């Protein structure tokens, strides 16, 4: 006699219960195989897409045209001394290409406008003591960095500052001191891994380090082109850029990167980021 439960007995003639584990369409092996094979197939498609759309390298990367060889960083943490020292005063009047180095003399006359320590008012943009238009911030051993009109300081430390145009161009200036006889080209190669850290700058493709004609109180200047993919958790940023190194007669060293994204527009925007390079090196060299 069945118990008097409310649910009643099972329906007579019901189908036999399925064997354990058979209540899903796929077996263990099939489920795992479907997922793993699917992931492998998608990965293969990703590789195919890279081959088809990547175009085989530099031709499609659209970096600076001078990217022809790779300058390997020499390792180490670089030669820049983080301790700030005194600074050469910029020449009061612009001098396009002075040939005689200027010795350090007095503290800088243009106070930083963005440094947290000072917070002094910015000088009049386009004033006579600033090449080009913009304002300056002072970092490290009194090095003045020109922030062109329309650019903003994105971050600043004691010896470095990052600036941005808000339109795809960025700059980063790092300062220190070294032996004045140091070659600017070696400053770039010895500090490359620290300046463009591999954790952020992946797929780094560098060009030759080229010496430039020094001017004013600068004794050595060099430049190097590069393209890279900036790593970000939300979206990576492909970019092209140049790294500049300048050594002044008093041993003050400036390393500066200018970058632009998308990389194919790097040269076309030289009028934008070029102000940062010209202005900052001009102030450093006293021109």
């Amino acid at each position, binding site marked *: 006699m069945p*118990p008097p*439960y*409310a*649910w009643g*007995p*099972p*329906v007579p003639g*019901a*189908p036999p*219960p*399925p064997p354990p*584990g058979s*209540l*899903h*369409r*796929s077996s*263990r092996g099939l489920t*795992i195989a479907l*997922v*793993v094979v699917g*992931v*492998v197939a*998608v*990965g*293969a498609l*990703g*590789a195919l*897409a*890279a081959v088809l759309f990547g*175009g085989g390298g530099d031709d*499609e*990367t659209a970096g600076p045209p001078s990217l022809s060889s790779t300058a390997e960083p020499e390792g180490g943490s670089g030669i820049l001394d983080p301790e700030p020292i005194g600074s050469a005063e910029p020449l009061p009047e612009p001098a396009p290409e002075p040939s005689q180095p200027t010795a350090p003399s007095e503290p800088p006359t243009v106070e930083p406008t963005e440094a947290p320590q000072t917070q002094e008012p910015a000088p009049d943009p386009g004033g006579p003591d600033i090449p080009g238009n913009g304002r300056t911030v002072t970092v490290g051993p009194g090095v003045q960095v020109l922030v062109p009109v329309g650019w*903003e300081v*994105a*971050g*600043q430390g004691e*010896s*470095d500052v*990052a600036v*941005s145009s808000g*339109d795809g161009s*960025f700059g*980063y200036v790092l300062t220190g001191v070294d032996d004045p006889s140091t070659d600017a080209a070696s400053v770039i190669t010895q500090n490359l891994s620290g300046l463009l*850290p*591999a954790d*952020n*700058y*992946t*797929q*780094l493709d560098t060009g030759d380090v080229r010496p430039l004609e020094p001017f004013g109180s600068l004794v050595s200047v060099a430049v190097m082109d590069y393209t890279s*993919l900036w*790593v*970000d*958790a*939300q*979206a*990576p*940023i492909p*970019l092209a850029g140049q790294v500049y190194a300048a050594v002044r007669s008093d041993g003050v060293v400036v390393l500066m990167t200018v970058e632009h*994204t998308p990389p194919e527009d790097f040269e076309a925007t030289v009028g934008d980021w070029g102000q940062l390079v010209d202005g900052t090196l001009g102030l450093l060299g006293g021109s």
Partner: protein
Amino acid sequence: MPCPTCSSDNPEVAAYCHKCGTSLRAGAGTQRSYAVASSEGVCQFALISTVMPHTSRESADNYRWAMILSSVLVVGATALGLLPVAVAAAALLVPLAYLVYIYDVNLWEDAPVAVVLGVFVVSGALALLVSLVFFDWVFAGQFQEFAAGGRARSGFDLGSILVPLLVFAVLLPVVSEVLRNLPGVVLARMPQFDDMIDGLTFGVAAGTAYAAVETLVLYRAVFTSGELRTTEGLAGWIVVVVNLMVVKSLVYGTATGIAVAAFSGKGEGYDGLTAFYLRNLGFACLANVAYWLGVRLLAYLPYGQALGLLWGFLVLAVLVVRIRVMLQAALLEAAVEDAAKAESSSRDVFVETFCPECENMLLSGAQFCIVCGESVRAVSRQTRRQMAASPGDPPPEQPTEGGAS
């Protein structure tokens, strides 16, 4: 033995009421197992049984192993520097597993192929459009400010990234979450998908599909850079790929799943645009905002990418527990209501069959296993079909629409 909650009669050996799932064990009080996976606790961080609620303990293991093996392959590809391979596979790992799951639990049969694929395609199209609008067409300059700020080693100026932060860590996640709800909500209105678990399933499907397409669009530079193999910075890439593969995909999926499940509501029939849905949609938006704010701000700290990954796991854990608590409450409350009204549910057991979780016999008319407390609503469609009526008879579907529950 009468149930203290719904007064239904149960066998003396029953540990749970077969009608409302109330624990009948002495001293059990409100402590009970998770009704969707009775071998687990309600507040346990168990990913597979949460986002794939129709799986049994055994089938959940299949997906666990499939995901582990696939993840190892993806991380291995990243470690070898094969970024196009790794990013593509990482973006689509969870959606692929979910597609197999939908097929496996027979939702595929109830939802025509066009419907299932439609969720993925529509979600993907929305992701494509939103990504292009935010990252290419309207706010490209603002996004690049993040990279500019990241170059300063001695600190960054929060003011300089305030606008990008508001756009990409607040506005974008909210807009995306609202859009991701659309395909799931449309499906949740259909009579055959009116259960809360169905809402959760299609919400997760929409969220993971959205995440996959967004990743492919935003990381397209990996495919167009001309570098099939990357040799440097791979440690950072492994963190990023794991974030894309697991955390981002599941944060999007679980957040959208919560909102769409709330749209479905408890019991049969969907609740629609209720205050409960709006609260959960707000919670989903908040979770997305919290995730991206944390990832963005932590990126400026040493080991920022890794910290962002840990933060993502924390947000994901909160979302997973939220789903489990919500489903648990909905299943039990709906069963109690049915029992109180003495109504039969289309999910009741009508023939002799067995619990897919513990393999003990289910009682006819049961909504819960009396041994382990597993909810009949949480079993696969394949199982449910075998529980319903005699061979050849259609299941006793009596769906109601528009806030019937």
